């Protein structure tokens, strides 16, 4: 065997490969992490990176040694856990489970302090947002990176109408949803003819445009100072003021969202969305009006952000463009992706995790976005269907491979 061939063979063996990989990542992080004035030039940090990469690759190797490539093994493991969960749920009778979940959502906060209730309210806002985005990304397969713009539309609708016109929360709530939906459709129209990846960047631009406009249009939005003194929601002469009252308000909104999104998912429109997501051409051939279906996804997805925005403005009584940055969009997207695109329980889990975990690990707050970014890549590579796969996705993205049923059929046609 010639020397070069031999060296390649050595690299392909697992352990030298892991060592080389970890050294490579250490080398890449070296110039960014070293410090000339620190003792040993701060070399311990890139070494830490190397060690981390080595541990991760070793773990993957251990998992994959027990059969099949690592990704597939991981898939099967997660699938088994999910399956066990599903069996349990099946045996327990779904209705009982729903009642228990609802009862605990109503009762548990009564025993918590203000801080914890506030976090739960946050969870509620994000569940609403993530479920709304799930319509666009998870069901219809359109990547929207400017979703936070609709949230801002809702919040500013209430902020402006409350402070300038004096409309009440309940009058603005449907209005905010409607306005957000209109913005969603307006944004959808120009990009409908284009492929998904253009959409991503246009929605990103749209989100930035809304934020820059809010920041600079001083005469209306008061720019970076934001809008102060937004009225709190009132109901039959009763004013919402304590955290627990807000919690129940958002809980009601969340329940409405879950109900509607679940019904939509199972409806004709929901099926049209999934069909379109999997194959636009085939969907169109089956008589789905792509234009209408996409606009519906945009409009109905944006509505929930509008509602969440109105609630947010009503709760905080102060809003400024700072709350509606691109990162907010990313975090909401992350919830959908981690939880499981298209799966309602998955998205709820994703939202809970991404709100509660950072609160629990405040000392690592700086590393939060680093973790989110890394998690998005890892999830896409190892488990694209998310923690809880939607039932349709489970079939399409199951352990057999990542191809959808349609493309699998095409492959079998071609080969056989």
């Amino acid at each position, binding site marked *: 065997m010639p020397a070069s061939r031999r060296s390649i063979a050595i690299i392909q063996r697992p352990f030298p490969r892991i060592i080389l990989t970890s050294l490579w990542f250490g080398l890449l992080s070296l110039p960014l992490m070293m410090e000339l004035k620190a003792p040993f030039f701060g070399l311990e940090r890139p070494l830490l990176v190397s060690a981390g990469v080595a541990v991760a690759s070793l773990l993957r190797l251990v998992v994959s040694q027990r059969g099949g490539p690592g990704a597939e093994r991981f898939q099967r493991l997660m699938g088994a856990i999910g399956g066990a969960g599903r069996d349990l749920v099946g045996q327990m009778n779904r209705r009982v489970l729903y009642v228990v979940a609802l009862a605990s959502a109503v009762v548990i906060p009564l025993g918590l302090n203000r801080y914890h209730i506030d976090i739960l309210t946050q969870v509620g806002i994000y569940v609403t947002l993530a479920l709304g985005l799930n319509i666009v990304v998870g069901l219809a397969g359109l990547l929207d*990176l400017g979703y936070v713009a609709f949230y801002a539309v809702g919040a500013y609708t209430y902020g402006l109408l409350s402070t300038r016109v004096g409309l009440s929360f309940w009058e603005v709530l449907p209005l905010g949803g409607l306005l957000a939906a209109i913005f969603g459709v307006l944004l959808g129209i120009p990009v409908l*003819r284009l492929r998904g990846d253009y959409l991503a960047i246009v929605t990103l631009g749209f989100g930035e445009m809304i934020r820059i406009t809010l920041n600079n249009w001083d005469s209306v939005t008061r720019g970076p100072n934001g809008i102060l003194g937004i009225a709190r929601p009132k109901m039959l002469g009763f004013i919402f003021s304590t955290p627990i009252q807000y919690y129940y308000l958002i809980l009601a909104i969340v329940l409405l969202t879950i109900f509607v999104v679940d019904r939509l998912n199972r409806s004709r429109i929901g099926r049209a969305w999934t069909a379109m997501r999997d194959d636009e051409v085939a969907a169109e051939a089956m008589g789905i009006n792509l234009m209408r279906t996409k606009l519906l996804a945009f409009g109905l997805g944006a509505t929930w952000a509008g509602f969440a925005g109105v609630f947010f403005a009503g709760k905080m009584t102060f809003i400024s463009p700072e709350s509606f940055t691109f990162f907010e969009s990313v975090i909401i997207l992350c919830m959908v992706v981690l939880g499981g695109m298209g799966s309602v329980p998955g998205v709820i889990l994703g939202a809970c995790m991404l709100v509660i975990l950072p609160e629990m690990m405040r000392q690592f707050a700086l590393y939060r976005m680093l973790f989110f970014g890394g998690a998005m890549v890892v999830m896409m590579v190892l488990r694209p269907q998310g923690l809880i796969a939607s039932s349709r996705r489970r079939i399409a993205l199951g352990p057999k491979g990542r191809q959808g049923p349609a493309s699998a059929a095409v492959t079998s046609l071609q080969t056989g």
Partner: protein
Amino acid sequence: MLVQQLINGLTLGSVYALIALGYTMVYGIIELINFAHGEIYMLGAYMGIISFSFLTTLHLTSPTSGATFLIMMIVAVLFCGACGVTMERVAYRPLRSASRLSPLISALGVSIFLQNFVMLAQGPRDKGFPHLFSGEGIDFPGGRISAIQIFIMATSVIMMVGLQLLVHSTTIGKAMRATAQDKQMASLVGIDVDRVISVTFLIGSALAAVAGVMVGMYYGLINFFIGYIAGIKAFTAAVLGGIGNIPGAMLGGLLLGLIEGLGAGYISSEYKDVFAFAILVMVLIFRPSGLLGKDISGRV
């Protein structure tokens, strides 16, 4: 005033063009919008500063010599090239047969990861770039063109001509064009598609690195967030010229720079960043294939 705005616009435009080339090449070959490309540009700028401080702290070269500058460029190019190739290996290659959404989300993840990695490793504050160009520039009626502006434009032109030569008259260039047309056919005629894709990322990242170092010197300040806006603008430039089309990206970059320069000068500089988005949306509505591109809207 007009002439000055044109010069500023062209300078900025040639930088956008360099970054846009990376987007357009990657899109041409694997049809992925590489969101993390802007971050590679940002890494290039950081590597410029890091290698500069390394060289001057250890007194290896004098701060104003040409050698310092050359080393800065080379280090940035090598580092960003390595990052680009690694990024493709880790985050995009495993997803090549996945649904269209997966690599996009993965790319977004890489972008956020790199941004925050640099923020944590280098600190969130602005970093000052050394002033290496002391040249006076040329004054003429109506404006002046500074030495660094001449340098940026000249370097960009050289890079673009070099890229054209590489793509059209070398073997690897031929392989790249073949892979862009049809990956399966290309691999059937013996082209190592994986290698071609790696080389594409390498070249795109190297161009972004050069752009990063030059912009750092032009503005004098960089931070971990510069890749985000620059990335969107370069992407707009790529779309304007017709994505997947190399001369298109150059044209698009220059045009975008000019429009932005004039817009900032005559309309409002507060909304400077909005122009790029507005152009993007207009192009997508009226001519989605871009100025020089083929029709892509209905491709299956």
